[in-house]
């Protein structure tokens, strides 16, 4: 619940939870002239100009520029412009926006590795085209001096290019060889180096065949695959950092003289007193020193009912303070807080999942040794057949290495994942993990958390119609005197029904209990059951008592997340088993399950129960997709085969999940499984395509009939087919 309530005031200085250690270190004072906002729903040219126009029209803003690729806007503004104000401006024109930590973003803004790869692609592309032009002349029949001259010019272009552009492959290959292993980069480096070396020798010997163009196109295509791979990962990583930047780790410390100061959480020590304002998240573990309020623990336990909080009560980091200001004496901060310990548990579970081998790795494991053995066999066989002609045998071995072209293999996976994750990103889903798509495709069971995932964690009034008009008007007047979520929900519902508040006097909020006022000499109270003298039921309710009349209950239900029904229907249509598990009481869980048509649900589940359930299903052979947002879900998220969390989830939950839903809408979820399955099908098709090419081309090469022209054709044709097949995904 807290997360949804928090999404608007996310920039408030005190709401900070489970910040990672590095970020604790660099949590500096905010409010530079440069602000970054995340815009999860932006998608078109109209959006860009609407957002930029609105921001530029805001006083104090000097310049605003939207980056649609990263779905964020950078704003240069006067120091007194706050992110909160800008978020409100954008909210006004219908765009969801969240503040991002400028410090974290700035570090990732310059993507050096990506630019470096692009530079190498450009150089190898330039060289490839020029050498190809010269090669065409040779293929079409240039002989003697002309051919040698063209070969020498090609060598002059190709050798420096390879030395520069193919470095990433050489470096990787050297690294794995040092560890005594093989990966795709070893045959690639070997093919490039042998092709270049052999061609140089042939050129010097006035030989007919040189493979400079093949060496260059190999470099070019593989770099392209590498870049696609890098970009997918860079977008996901920078966005993951953005999400981390959503919660700015600060707290308000009370000095001995009672004044307040804002400090990074890292600066908080045990024994300090911190102020937690209404609506803010508790930043540390502690004991309430003074103040009364209500506490929302839904993110930690999944309970929707707020709990009463008074002096002497213990609070855990991550809970949300609802009504009154609190002073909290710190018992554990930062690394020692319960929240952080939970995050450590997640890290352990995570490392278990990293053992998943991706399709690309599995292919490389068969491919790399296979190619080497084949080339070596060709070399030895021809050495024996020709009676010791090393030059001929080596030429054929090089041709085999080039023809078995790992281009298609190198492009097979990244081309598809780029297309698939691009498609999902457009729909507001962010893939954080490289193998997440493949794992998502295998899923057969989906487990949803309730509070904050299927519901927004925002209450909605359910029984306004059952009350007398007079009562409603009194309740409305009282509800408007409070910032409590139930009160706000009631006020909103009643206003929508066209009611006007009754005239009350002396309205005052009693933190932790409710609101009271005077109506014609009678005391009216709206709040907790015990406070107004009523018997509390198991439903979320606030009670109204007018004078000595019996109290009446206003019941509330959690608001359903938009798209939840659609997502569940779609998942079910794909033959998936949909379940729900919640830490909440049975009544609201059963209620929601009935509403969504989920037959299999569990209520009052502790965090351990959730993880155990996921584990048990996994042991029975089911592939579980866990969707959850709370701290009580993190262990289950980490234990599941693949996991998804909404952007409003706690930091720890987002870290534990593979995919993050950026917007509020849950509907893209239904699409995600389908896209993932399609993507894996395309990847397998791509492997099949490159296998077929090899089946045709390898015998030709082994028999010694391969020419540089045949190599160039096979290489380009297979790379292009594979890329086109990947594009079919869109």
């Amino acid at each position, binding site marked *: 619940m807290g997360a949804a309530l928090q999404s608007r005031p996310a920039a408030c200085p005190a709401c900070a939870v489970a910040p990672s250690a590095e970020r604790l270190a660099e949590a500096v004072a905010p409010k530079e002239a440069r602000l970054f906002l995340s815009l999860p729903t932006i998608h*078109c*040219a*109209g959006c*860009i*100009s609407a957002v*930029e*126009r609105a921001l530029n029209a805001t006083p104090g803003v000097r310049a605003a520029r*939207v*980056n*649609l*690729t*990263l779905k964020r806007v950078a704003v240069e503004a006067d120091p007194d412009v706050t992110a909160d104000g800008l978020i409100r401006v954008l909210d006004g024109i219908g765009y969801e926006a969240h503040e991002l930590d400028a410090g974290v973003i700035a570090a990732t803004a310059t993507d050096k590795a990506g*630019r470096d790869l*692009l*530079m190498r692609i*450009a*150089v190898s592309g*330039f060289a490839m*085209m*020029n050498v190809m*032009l*010269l090669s065409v002349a040779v293929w079409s029949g240039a002989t003697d001096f*002309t051919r040698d001259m063209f070969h020498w*010019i090609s060598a002059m*272009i190709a050798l420096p290019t390879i030395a520069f552009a193919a470095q990433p492959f050489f470096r990787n290959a050297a690294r794995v060889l040092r560890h005594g292993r093989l990966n795709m980069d070893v045959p690639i480096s070997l093919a490039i180096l042998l092709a270049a070396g052999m061609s140089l020798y042939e050129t010097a010997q006035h030989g007919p065949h040189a493979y400079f163009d093949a060496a260059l196109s190999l470099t070019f295509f593989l770099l392209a695959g590498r870049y696609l791979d890098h970009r997918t990962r860079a977008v996901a990583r920078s966005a993951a950092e953005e999400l981390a930047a959503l919660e700015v780790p600060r707290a308000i410390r009370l000095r001995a003289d009672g004044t307040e100061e804002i400090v990074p959480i890292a600066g908080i020590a045990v024994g300090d007193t911190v102020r937690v304002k209404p609506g803010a998240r508790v930043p540390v573990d502690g004991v309430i020193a003074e103040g009364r309020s209500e506490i929302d623990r839904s993110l930690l336990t999944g309970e929707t009912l707020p709990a009463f909080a008074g002096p002497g009560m213990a609070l855990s980091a991550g809970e949300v303070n609802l009504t009154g200001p609190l002073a909290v004496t710190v018992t554990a901060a930062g690394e020692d807080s319960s929240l952080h310990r939970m995050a450590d548990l997640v890290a352990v579970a995570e490392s278990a999942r990293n053992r998943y081998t991706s399709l690309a790795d599995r292919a490389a494991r068969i491919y790399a040794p296979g190619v080497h053995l084949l080339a070596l066999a060709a070399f030895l066989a021809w050495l024996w057949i020709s009676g010791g002609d090393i030059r001929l045998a080596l030429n054929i071995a090089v041709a085999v290495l080039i023809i078995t072209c790992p281009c298609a293999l190198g492009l097979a996976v990244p081309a598809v994942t780029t297309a698939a994750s691009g498609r999902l990103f457009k729909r507001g889903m962010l893939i954080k993990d490289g193998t997440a798509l493949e794992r998502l495709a295998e899923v057969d069971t989906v487990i949803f958390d309730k509070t904050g995932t299927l519901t927004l964690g925002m209450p909605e009034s359910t029984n306004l119609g059952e009350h007398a008009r007079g009562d409603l008007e009194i309740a409305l007047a009282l509800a408007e005197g409070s910032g409590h979520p139930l009160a706000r929900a009631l006020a909103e519902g009643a206003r929508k029904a066209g009611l006007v508040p009754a005239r009350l006097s002396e309205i005052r909020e009693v933190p932790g209990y409710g609101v009271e006022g005077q109506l014609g000499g009678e005391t009216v109270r709206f709040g907790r059951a015990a406070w107004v003298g009523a018997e509390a039921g198991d439903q979320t309710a606030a009670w109204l008592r007018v004078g000595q009349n019996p109290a009446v209950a206003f019941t509330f239900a959690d608001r359903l997340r938009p798209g939840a029904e659609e997502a569940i229907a779609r998942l079910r249509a794909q033959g998936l088993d949909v379940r729900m598990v919640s830490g909440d009481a049975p009544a609201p869980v059963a209620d929601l399950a009935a509403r969504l048509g989920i037959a299999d649900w569990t209520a009052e589940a502790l965090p351990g129960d959730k993880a155990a359930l996921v584990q048990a299903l996994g042991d029975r052979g089911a592939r579980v997709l866990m969707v959850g947002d709370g701290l009580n879900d993190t262990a289950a998220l980490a234990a599941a085969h693949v996991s998804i969390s909404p952007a409003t989830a706690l930091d720890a939950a987002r870290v534990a999940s593979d995919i993050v839903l950026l917007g509020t809408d849950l509907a893209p979820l239904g699409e995600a499984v389908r896209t993932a399955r399609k993507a894996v099908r395309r990847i397998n098709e791509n492997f099949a395509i490159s296998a077929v090419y090899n089946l045709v081309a390898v015998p030709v090469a082994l028999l010694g009939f391969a020419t540089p022209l045949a190599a160039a054709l096979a290489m380009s044709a297979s790379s292009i087919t594979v890329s086109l097949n990947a594009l079919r995904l869109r």
Partner: protein
Amino acid sequence: MEVLAFLIPIALFLGGLGLAAFFWALRSRQFDDPEGDSRRILTDDWDDQPKP
């Protein structure tokens, strides 16, 4: 065939010019937002006068 002595250097020079232009574009951050830039041509915000 002597013409090759001119044509090949010219071809390489022109190609190199393109490469240099690409480097410049890369360094001046023109590839930071390909998605957005492809849409920006559709807006008519600065059609009448250049952005100041």
